[in-house]
Structure formats: structure tokens, C-alpha cells
């Protein structure tokens, strides 16, 4: 998510990191929500196209059972044979990292990123093999099933009742230079096998999860690239809700509504309190209570010291690319309004790039 403008030092650090990155191979990832959505095929097809365009492409690992479509593509490609290892009396194939490094192709295709290597292998995990290839300047195109991402395991378990025993850290997924979602409706997956509605439902939930994760990665990359170029334009591709807390606002209603909205939009919820001087003890207590509730509802809480609340709120909202600003009627007080104008009015007038939602001061009166 976007933050306030980075400092020159921060920019320099990022540029250096980017140069470092350019010596690395590029990582491109095909993300699917289940097996059989066609990740491996898309990966191979990309390899085939790149080869046609003259790039030096090899296959580092491809899973054993393949459809006829895949086999046809495979015939035209160079495959680096895997190492055969016996584990518990069963033969297993491990990607031969040394052989690939020796061959040093431009591009290496690696299927099933989430595999664990057998004990005694060069790296315990395949994604670590891939990292080694990248560090040596080899571009890797790979495929991953959402269900094998470590940080997604709680969500996956809720849907499928199962956790994966071997996983890839989400940070590695997010480090990909490019991520492609491989999508197919659940019905296309079990084409010949009749499926139950419960299966379809579970698959749909996984599918939604994969799309939202991909959207997040895209959003993150988008903001990074914009920041790097010093572009401050707010693109509004993602909603972001900010709830402004004051002692007298109906914080419960605002926060609960904000929380519901954030869930429906799958977006961030922020809460902001601009510290007011000279509050009574009971008001201070109220603010603390509101902020505790905000945290409980998953809001990221920010507290600012500023003199003018309206301008501080606006500045904060702009810097955080807020699209929906929730404020309470209670921002105004009669006498202050008469002397200095109304901060709520000022806020509404100035906040023209976001929706401003004004909440009642207290619970609604019974409707007559």
C-alpha cells in the first residue's frame, strides 16, 4: 500500500535494489487455484513461444503425468534430466540444479514450485533451487498452486479442511517480477467426472482467494513502480476506507460499517485520530475505547499530532490513497462554527477526490 513520499535515501536504496535485481534472472509465475486449471500448460506454452522468438530455453523440471497437449509441446523442448533419488524405497526425481547451472540457459522452466526435496539434497525446498538459479542470472518461469502458499494455509484449511505439508513462503511469491493468474471455472476442471455442488463451492472459494491474492500482488507492484518514478497520481484501482475518530463520534457505528465495507470490497481499513488538546479525562477514555475497537476490527490505527484537524485528515487521506472517508457529524461545534466556520464543511469542500460519508452523532432517533 502506498505511503507518504519516500525520502531521497529511500529512493536510492530502491534504485540500488533494482540494479541488483537486473543482474538476477527474472521470476515469472503462473498462479492457479487448484490442480488441473492449466498452469503447467501455460508455463510450457510460454517456454515454447520464447524459444520460437530465439531465447535459450530449457525445462528444469516437469511433473510426470501429462496430458497429450503438454506432451506435444514437450517434444520440441530441451529437458535437463532430473536426479533419481530413492526415498523410503520409492524412486523420486529431483531437479538437477548443478546440471542447469552448468548448462546455464537464458530461461529455465520449473514446474511444481512447492515441492520439498528429499533429505540430503542441495536445498531442502524447490523454491530455494529456483532462487539459486535466479541469483545466477537465469530467468525462471514456474507454476504454483495457491493451496501450497504458506501464509494462506489458515484460509485454505477453512475451505478444504486440509493443510499442505510442503509450502512456499508468500514473500517468495510476491518477489516475482511477473505473476499471471491461470483461471478456469470449476466446472471446466472436472470435465468428465461428475462433481458435487460442495466441490464446486470449495473450488469457487479457492478461486476467489487466488484472484484476490493476485490483485494484491498487482496492486503492490503498481504502487512500487509509481513511487519509483515519483508519480503521485492516485489511480484508484483499489478502495481504501478511512474512519476518523473523535471522542464524541459514534465510533462504534462508523467502525462496524467501515469493517463491513472493507470486507465486501476486500480492502484496507484505516482509523485516524487527530489528537485534540485539553480533552477531559472521560473524553480521553472514550478515544482509547474507540481506538481499541478499531484495532479489534482489524483497522490500522494512526494517531496524528496536528492543529487543524480537517487539513491533517485530508493530507493523511491523500497520502494513503483513501477512496472513502468516514466522518461524524460531531466534528462541528456551534460556537466554533460561528467564529471560524465549520470543519466538516471545510472537509467536504476540500475532499473532492474521495467519497465522504457523514455519520450521525448518536444512534438514530426512532423513525416516526
Amino acid at each position: 500500500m502506498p505511503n507518504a513520499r519516500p525520502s531521497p535515501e529511500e529512493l536510492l536504496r530502491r534504485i540500488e535494489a533494482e540494479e541488483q535485481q537486473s543482474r538476477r534472472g527474472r521470476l515469472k509465475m503462473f498462479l492457479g487455484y487448484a490442480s488441473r486449471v492449466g498452469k503447467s500448460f501455460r508455463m510450457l506454452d510460454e517456454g515454447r513461444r520464447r524459444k520460437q522468438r530465439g531465447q535459450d530455453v530449457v525445462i528444469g523440471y516437469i511433473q510426470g503425468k501429462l496430458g497429450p497437449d503438454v506432451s506435444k509441446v514437450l517434444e520440441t523442448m530441451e529437458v535437463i534430466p532430473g536426479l533419481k533419488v530413492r526415498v523410503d524405497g520409492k524412486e523420486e526425481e529431483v531437479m538437477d540444479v548443478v546440471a542447469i547451472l552448468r548448462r546455464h540457459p537464458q530461461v529455465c522452466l520449473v514446474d511444481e514450485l512447492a515441492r520439498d526435496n528429499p533429505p540430503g539434497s542441495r536445498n531442502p525446498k524447490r523454491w530455494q533451487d529456483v532462487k539459486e538459479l535466479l541469483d545466477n542470472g537465469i530467468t525462471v518461469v514456474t507454476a504454483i498452486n495457491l493451496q501450497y502458499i504458506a501464509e494462506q494455509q489458515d484460509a485454505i484449511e477453512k475451505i478444504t479442511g486440509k493443510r499442505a505439508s510442503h509450502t512456499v513462503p508468500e514473500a517468495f511469491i510476491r518477489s516475482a517480477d511477473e505473476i499471471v493468474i491461470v483461471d478456469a471455472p470449476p466446472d471446466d476442471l472436472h470435465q468428465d467426472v461428475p462433481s458435487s455442488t460442495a466441490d464446486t463451492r470449495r473450488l469457487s472459494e479457492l478461486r476467489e482467494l487466488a484472484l484476490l491474492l493476485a490483485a494484491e500482488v498487482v496492486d503492490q507492484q503498481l504502487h512500487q513502480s509509481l513511487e519509483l518514478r515519483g508519480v503521485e497520481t492516485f489511480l484508484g484501482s483499489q478502495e481504501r476506507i478511512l474512519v476518523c475518530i473523535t471522542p464524541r463520534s459514534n465510533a462504534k457505528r462508523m467502525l462496524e460499517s467501515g469493517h463491513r465495507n472493507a470486507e465486501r470490497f476486500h480492502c484496507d481499513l484505516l482509523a485516524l485520530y487527530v489528537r485534540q488538546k485539553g480533552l477531559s479525562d472521560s473524553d480521553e477514555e472514550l478515544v482509547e475505547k474507540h481506538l481499541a475497537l478499531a484495532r479489534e476490527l482489524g483497522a490500522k490505527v494512526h494517531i496524528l499530532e496536528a492543529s487543524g484537524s480537517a487539513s491533517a485528515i485530508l493530507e493523511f487521506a491523500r497520502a494513503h490513497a483513501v477512496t472513502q472517508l468516514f466522518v461524524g457529524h460531531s466534528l462541528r461545534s456551534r460556537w466554533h462554527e460561528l467564529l471560524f466556520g465549520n470543519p466538516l464543511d471545510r472537509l467536504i469542500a476540500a475532499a473532492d477526490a474521495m467519497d465522504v460519508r457523514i455519520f450521525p452523532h448518536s444512534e438514530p432517533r426512532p423513525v416516526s
Partner: protein
Amino acid sequence: MTSQSPARKGRFKIFLGYAAGVGKTYQMLDEGQELRRKGVDTVIGYFEPHGRKDTIARTEGLEIIPRRKIEYRGTIFEEMDTEAILKRKPEVCLVDELAHTNVPGSERTKRCQDVQVLLEAGISVLTSLNIQHLESLNDQVWQMTGVRVRETLPDWVVDQADEIVVVDVTPRALRHRLERGVIYSPEKAEKALENFFAEHNLSALREIVMRHAAHEIEEKLSAGSGDSISPGLRDTPLSAEPTGPKECILICIDERPSAAVLIRRGRRVADYLRAECLAIYVSPDPTLAHLAQEEREAVEKHLGFARNLRIETHVIEGNEVSESVVEFARARHATQIFMGRSPSQGWKHRVRGSTLHRAVRLARDMEITIVAERRR
């Protein structure tokens, strides 16, 4: 996809992409070929080759229903021949570019209406669509890309799809395709790369596609929830029923062009909150006879636009807009009133003494949303 009895509606599947050239048509044709191989009677109802060789090759062996020629102002245009398709009555029909507007003189104004006719006749339809054509995203897309998309599609058409497939490539790969001249002619490609196809535009649109597809899946899950899911799974965040009160959004229309922004935004938020959505226009004379012709037409256009997005519209008699709006909102148990800013110089005049200002004061027990101005 199986054969349909005429009494049943055809299945409706949309290949959704974030820009031209991502491969929607290609994937649609691929699926058409697959169906044909399985013995499903599949035809191409409309196909836009754009001179793309790879794509054209994918049509091989598929029956193409010839287009209908329509003359308009001395020029011949070609449109999908819906009547010919109905007569041919295939099981599945492939229709490119769902958001297309037909040339005047066609039977129906929009291609999506033609598709509706096919579906009702029991013909399943595979179709392609780019996200920027979605009506509720029109202002956002304009703000992001500087392009005001003219051919739009009400969101409910997409909601009706049985299946939505996201067709994804990375913006980098898409820009390479453009550079190689796969998508447009060289001059057009060069301009596109600097404008609509700028990498950040593509990323933003791509993010919107993913979020929108996720949203559509969630809506389907919620519509079909309750029966098939095991009790232990019921409280997953993805399948959870919305808690809290049922929302109702009331959009307050006026004669200004910005009312369209208000309507789109209200519709979009209502969709996400699963809220009811109403729109009203307040006038001393509900026949609108007192308005200047230009204003009357503007109001009628807005009301028609809202109805097209399946928003219930009302024209209410009243002399004081803020009072009538708040009264109506109370009567209909609206939880949120959507309003625009009033036009004027300086914030004091803009807000104080305006309809908005008065409504905010009158509706101290209600939530009022003042919708963002979309500017570039």
C-alpha cells in the same frame, strides 16, 4: 456444456480481460474448437479478426454465420445476424466483443441484447469483454487512463453470466505483443503504448479485473449459500453472509452532468454492499414541464440511465430538495443518501446554504455520502 432443451436458457460464459490483445478471443475460439471436437454443435456468430493471424487460425473448421449488412448514411456496416443464428439454432454460439453498439437501423441497439435473445432461445453463448466497458467503472477508467469509454455495458449483464473466465497476461507481455505488431498496426501501436497501454494503466485495469472476477464469484457463492456447504465451513470469511443491517442507498439526482457519476458510484457501492438502490429527482412539478428543454432532457437522460442500471427511480414533488429527499429517505428506510457537491465558487458558498448543506443538517440521524468528483 450440454445440449439444451428450447425451454431452457442457454449458458452464458464471458471471457474477461483488461485490454485488447490479452487473448480473450483466442481462448474463446479454443474452447469453441474443444466443444466442436466433443461433438457439440458450435458456430461463430460474430468474430472480429483484427488481422491477427494466430487468432484467425483458431477459427478453422468452425462454421461462421455470415454477418448482416446494414447501410447507414451511405456506408455499409456489418453486424451479427441474430435472426440467421436463431434459424440455424446451434447449441453454442461464439460472439466476440459483447460491449459493441450496433449501427443505427439494427434490430437492437446493443450486441448484449442480441446475446440475450440467443440465450432465451436456448443457445449457449461464449463471449469476450474488456473490463473498461463496464458501466460502473466508466469514471474510474477515465480518471486512470484519460480515455472516456463510449461503448458501455450495464453491470447486471455481466452479473447474469453463468461463468466468467479471467484471461490474464502480464502487462509486460502485452506491451511486447503490441511492439511486435500483433495487436495493432505499427503507428497505432506506438500511440497506444504511450497512452492507454502505459504499464501503470494496464496494471490498474488488471487489478480491477481480478477484483471484479473475485466479486462476481463471491456473489454467486452467496446466492447459492446455505445448502451444500458443510456447517464447519459456513463461517469462512469468503462465504460469510453480510452481517449488520440491510443497506439501502438513495441517489439524489439533479440535472447536472455529474449526476451520471453519482449514479454509477451509487450502483457500484450498492452492488458491493448487496444494498437496495433507489434514485430520486425532486421537482416542484413532477411532469418536469416547468424545466427548460435542455434541463428536462438531462434529467430524463439521468433517470433512464439509472433505470438501465436497474435502479428504481422516482420523481418527487417538492419545493425544497433537501427536505423532500430526507423525507423520502425516511419513508423508504434508506441507510445512505448519495449526493453530489453543489457547484459554486469558494467552499463557503459551495457547502453552506446549498442543498447538500441543508440535507446534512436535516438528516442528522442518517448517513450521507458526498460522492467524489472525478477529475484529471
